[in-house]
């Protein structure tokens, strides 16, 4: 796996460390980066939720809270030049791939300064320059696109790897199968990351998928490890191996990361399809808390920096919110712009 020393995160949001190396060998800078990213995701969404409930934004918001370790662990294993495809629940992937929270927040607010100039909203944020090929409102649809990015890399010999994030709900889609099978037949440099957060809306993953996702590897002749998606170290190590394999030209890996969405399907979800106990048990296993505990138990001095990181994230969040609220609404002249390259 290539070693990246590049600083992650965007300068507007302040400096951030980088993450690489084997699990045991994660240096302090990388641990700090992991913490920073996970905190950003958490706080970004908590803030968005408040804004939504204050009727400052509209549409659908899908929160990633509780799943931070998956996006963070996977993106920690990617190089800056690598690509990802994301989902309707895309804030976490976006932040982990280095996006600016101010432009994200502005997008949720529907403002011109947002990532998509207000045209996309929460479900449609991309940052091509950072390698984020985009969130997606269509379940499973990012998977063939990820295969395409990987095919492009293979043909252009650019040495890049693509990671495709998708949920357990995408497991049953034709897009999953077409994308994964094609990628496997062509030995493409892609890592398929199934975030099994137990549910797709009210539907349990085991109801939707006839067998567990990690049982699918043999159907495509590829490895399909299962990991604890709330354990950022395990996610990272597995993703790093998969990225390595992909970059070597040995083809795709299908990772099933078991995690949990602590919030409802959307910000409006009030449905009763899981027990309080189940939710509580998973909150117990909160990925950020577990990460903190692990760092403490390992007696790593970086723990001292975590308060600073918290404070930094609060500043970033305040900025992002102020930026979004102060930003102008798009002008209606823009409606038919950006449809085509002129």
């Amino acid at each position, binding site marked *: 796996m290539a070693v990246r020393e590049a600083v992650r995160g965007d300068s507007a949001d302040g400096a951030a460390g980088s993450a690489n190396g084997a699990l045991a060998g994660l240096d302090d800078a990388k641990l700090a980066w992991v913490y920073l990213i996970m905190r950003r995701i958490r706080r970004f969404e908590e803030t968005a939720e408040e804004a939504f409930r204050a009727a400052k934004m509209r549409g659908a918001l899908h929160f990633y809270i509780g799943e931070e370790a998956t996006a963070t662990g996977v993106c920690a294993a990617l190089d800056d030049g690598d690509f990802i495809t994301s989902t309707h629940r895309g804030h976490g992937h976006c932040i982990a791939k280095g996006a600016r929270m101010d432009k994200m927040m502005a997008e949720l607010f529907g403002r011109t300064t947002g990532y998509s100039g207000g045209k996309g909203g929460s479900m449609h944020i991309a940052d091509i320059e950072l390698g984020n090929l985009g969130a997606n409102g269509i379940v499973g649809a990012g998977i063939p696109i990820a295969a395409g990015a990987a095919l492009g890399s293979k043909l252009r010999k650019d040495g890049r790897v693509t990671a495709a994030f998708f949920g357990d709900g995408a497991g049953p889609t034709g897009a999953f199968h077409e994308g994964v099978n094609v990628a496997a037949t062509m030995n493409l440099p892609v890592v398929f990351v199934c975030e099994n957060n137990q549910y797709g809306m009210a539907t349990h993953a085991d109801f939707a998928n006839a067998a567990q996702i990690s049982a699918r590897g043999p159907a495509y002749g590829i490895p399909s490890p299962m990991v604890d998606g709330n354990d950022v170290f395990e996610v990272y190590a597995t993703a790093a191996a998969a990225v390595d394999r992909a970059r070597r030209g040995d083809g795709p890996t299908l990772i099933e990361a078991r995690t949990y969405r602590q919030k409802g399907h959307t910000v409006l979800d009030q449905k009763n399809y899981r027990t309080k106990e189940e939710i509580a048990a998973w909150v117990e296993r909160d990925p950020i808390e577990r990460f903190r505990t692990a760092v403490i138990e390992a007696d790593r001095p970086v723990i001292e920096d975590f308060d600073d990181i918290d404070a930094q994230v609060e500043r970033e969040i305040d900025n992002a919110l102020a930026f979004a609220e102060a930003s102008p609404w798009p002008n209606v002249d823009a*409606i038919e712009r950006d449809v085509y390259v002129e």
Partner: protein
Amino acid sequence: MAVTMRDQPSTETAAREIFMSEALREALDEEMQRDPTVFVVGEEVGVWGGAYAVTDGLLAKWGADRIVDTPIAEAAIAGLGIGAALTGSRPVAEFMYSDFMGIAMDQIVNQAAKNRYMFGGKAKLPLTYRAPFGAGTGNAAQHTQSLEAWFAHVPGLKVITASTPYDAKGLLKSAIREDNVVVMFEHKAIYAMRGHVPEHEYLVPIGVADVKREGTDVSVITYARQVHHALEAAEQLAAEGISVEVVDIRSLYPLDADAILRSVRKTHRAVVLYEAVRFGGFGAEIAAQIQELAFDDLDAPVLRVGAAHAPVPFSEPLERASFPDAAKAAAAIRQSLEGVR
């Protein structure tokens, strides 16, 4: 938005006003009661009760053999409907959003629509596809399209859409009883619109348009949510002494061309109002037919009001401005009146 119901019986407890989503639920419930081979299949139709609550409570009443939850697999949902319909059931298959029908187009168009014809007219497919469509909800490009023109262009499908709870219930019941494949588009923004629905059973026939408001100066030909924009515009213009007739086609195929032509022959002017992208939308077919069949009756070109040539934008001011509304309808009506020859 209050709606003038023309074909409702006046003897009813006029008070019974229900949401369009409830009206649709009643249609499903009654038809399931009437015919044990009717069942509902789709994503989140059970525990969740449907993304727009149309099937809310039906799982509890009818059980999992009549309200069948599926994984996220739109091609399979379409195919489940086909296979079950071919073998003796009468399925109602739901797409959570019509936008997702892209995944199922082969099953809907190459399989469901063509089955009877390809195989020489022997099979029947008593199959209804339901799908929410339309914009106004801030759900952006992949959840708010109006793609009805695709389906109306496909022989073997019937395509319907309602503007009122009354029509929604009556049309859906007719669709379920059809031995043909019917695609029913339900406009998301009016699920929560209330309107009178009688207690007694009734059907609204497929293929019959409904004049939702009579007028003499200009005909507005429209459907689904835009009917309400047309009625709003008509109300405004009435104050200016302009008399607008609003024709709700209700069925895109078969299209009730007679009703449209009757109206246009009376008013001599027509505005076609629809929420899909204007270019290549179903309004083009309506306009093309009017000018062809009532050429000598027209005092002005048939105008079309449709959506901008863009995917649906998220941001509220953009989304609002992308779509027809009463003001745009009124402007087109005025323009039509100016075009006197």
